[in-house]
């Protein structure tokens, strides 16, 4: 059989044309996810400074605001990563639905984790929460009075803004639920990242899963500790008001 005959067999017309290879889409997902994970790690370290005190947090916030170049680079990279991450995720979800047009009458799961099966849902919930979060603390749209908070040194009083915000049970509750979703999302994401990039084998996999769960729990504790501490009055408004 000559090559052209072989080509004919191998080029039997098939139902769809996919432009980005499946493996490349996974890589896009993994790499943008890693960028977002780095962002939320730095963000967490920043937030935790609330436990050091008002001066520290407000100073940190002011420093960040003054580094305009860095601030906008990080913002733009993060926004691009968010767009690619969500776009790829939603695209994969639709493609994967299409790959099984008729579902099973009865379908059982043998070992897929709950977090792996809920990525699209936890992901979208996190996205909607982030929009609210930005409106609340970054753009200060939901509570415009926060914009005028000033500390003794005349800096924007981020410290009091956070405490005032989290004193509301609904805001704290929504925040804790959102970081729980985030922890769930991360627990599948981290081991998935290594698998997708090929840095995995059967000896490493169980360790990666354990690592992913530990990191997810640390993120949850770290982020949730702030509203919880505010509600329990461990972190308090500065004496003498703000």
């Amino acid at each position, binding site marked *: 059989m000559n090559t052209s005959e072989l080509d004919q067999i191998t080029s039997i017309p098939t139902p769809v044309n996919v432009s980005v290879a499946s*493996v490349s889409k996974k890589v896009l997902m993994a790499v943008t996810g890693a960028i977002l994970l780095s962002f939320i790690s730095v963000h967490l370290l920043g937030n935790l400074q609330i436990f050091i005190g008002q001066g520290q947090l407000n100073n940190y916030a002011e420093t960040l605001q003054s580094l305009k170049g860095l601030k906008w680079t990080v913002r733009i990279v993060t926004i691009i990563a968010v767009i690619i991450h969500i776009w790829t995720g939603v695209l*994969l979800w639709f493609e994967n639905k299409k790959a*099984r047009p008729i579902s099973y*009458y009865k379908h059982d799961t043998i*070992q897929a984790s709950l977090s792996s099966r809920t990525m699209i849902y936890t992901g979208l919930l996190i996205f909607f929460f982030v929009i609210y979060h930005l409106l609340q603390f970054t753009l200060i749209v939901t509570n415009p009075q926060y914009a005028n908070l000033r500390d003794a040194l005349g800096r924007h009083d981020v410290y009091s803004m956070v405490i005032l915000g989290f004193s509301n049970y609904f805001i704290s509750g929504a925040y804790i639920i959102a970081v729980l979703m985030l922890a769930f999302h991360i627990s*599948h994401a981290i081991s*998935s990242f290594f698998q997708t*990039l090929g840095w995995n084998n059967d000896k490493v996999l169980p360790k990666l899963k354990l690592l992913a769960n530990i990191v997810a729990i640390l993120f949850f504790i770290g982020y949730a500790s702030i509203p919880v501490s505010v509600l329990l009055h461990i972190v308090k408004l500065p004496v003498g008001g703000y």
Partner: protein
Amino acid sequence: MNLTLYVWRQKNAQDKGRMEKYDAKNITSHMSFLEMLDVVNEDLIHQNIEPIAFDHDCREGICGTCSLMINGIPHGPQRATTVCQLHMRYFKDGDTIYIEPWRSRAFPIVRDLIVDRSAFDRIMQAGGFISVNTGGVPDANSIPISKKDADTAMDAAACIGCGACVAACPNASAMLFIAAKVSHFASLPQGQIERKERVKKMIAHMDKEGFGNCTNYYECEAACPKEISVKFIAKMNREYFKASLTGR
């Protein structure tokens, strides 16, 4: 024992199909699952009902032809077992069993429980081969292969191409199948010549056939009757990046 079966019946590719209820009477625990279906079919023939069409060939667990979704799990409840090797002792009197075909856009239904898996053949034709000169059988051990490589290749080569990975995957992805084939060839000296081309072509063809994308559920590994590990998917991804970055 007596069982109640719900079986997917579909006349041909165009038919809409539906679940039908049948009774499986006087089944012994020593029968294989397929023998149980044989008994049911005999019964159906006596009642002038068209027997249930299902795929099978070796009935020894080595050919990969049998393919039934049993109570939502490919090849049924016993791990590392093809449905032809599954025995009725895994069920008890009075059980209700749902039997369905593999569900994937890339595996169209031919009839009842039989699906067309030639998408796998076309993926193999796209790159799942090695080029060798024809002629006499080569001498054994003429090409030295390390124990480690031989083991890896053998683990991957255990794949019988049944398609349970696709059936189990919530995304109907075929990555475990392709990963097994790519890893098998990439681990052996004979597979080196087409190594880079192969992985790219097989993945490109897999996408064309309309399989879903892997999102690391690892259901494939759990459902695989030959226990092919998902580590091979990681290996395939490595092979793919190396091939894409270093060209042909």
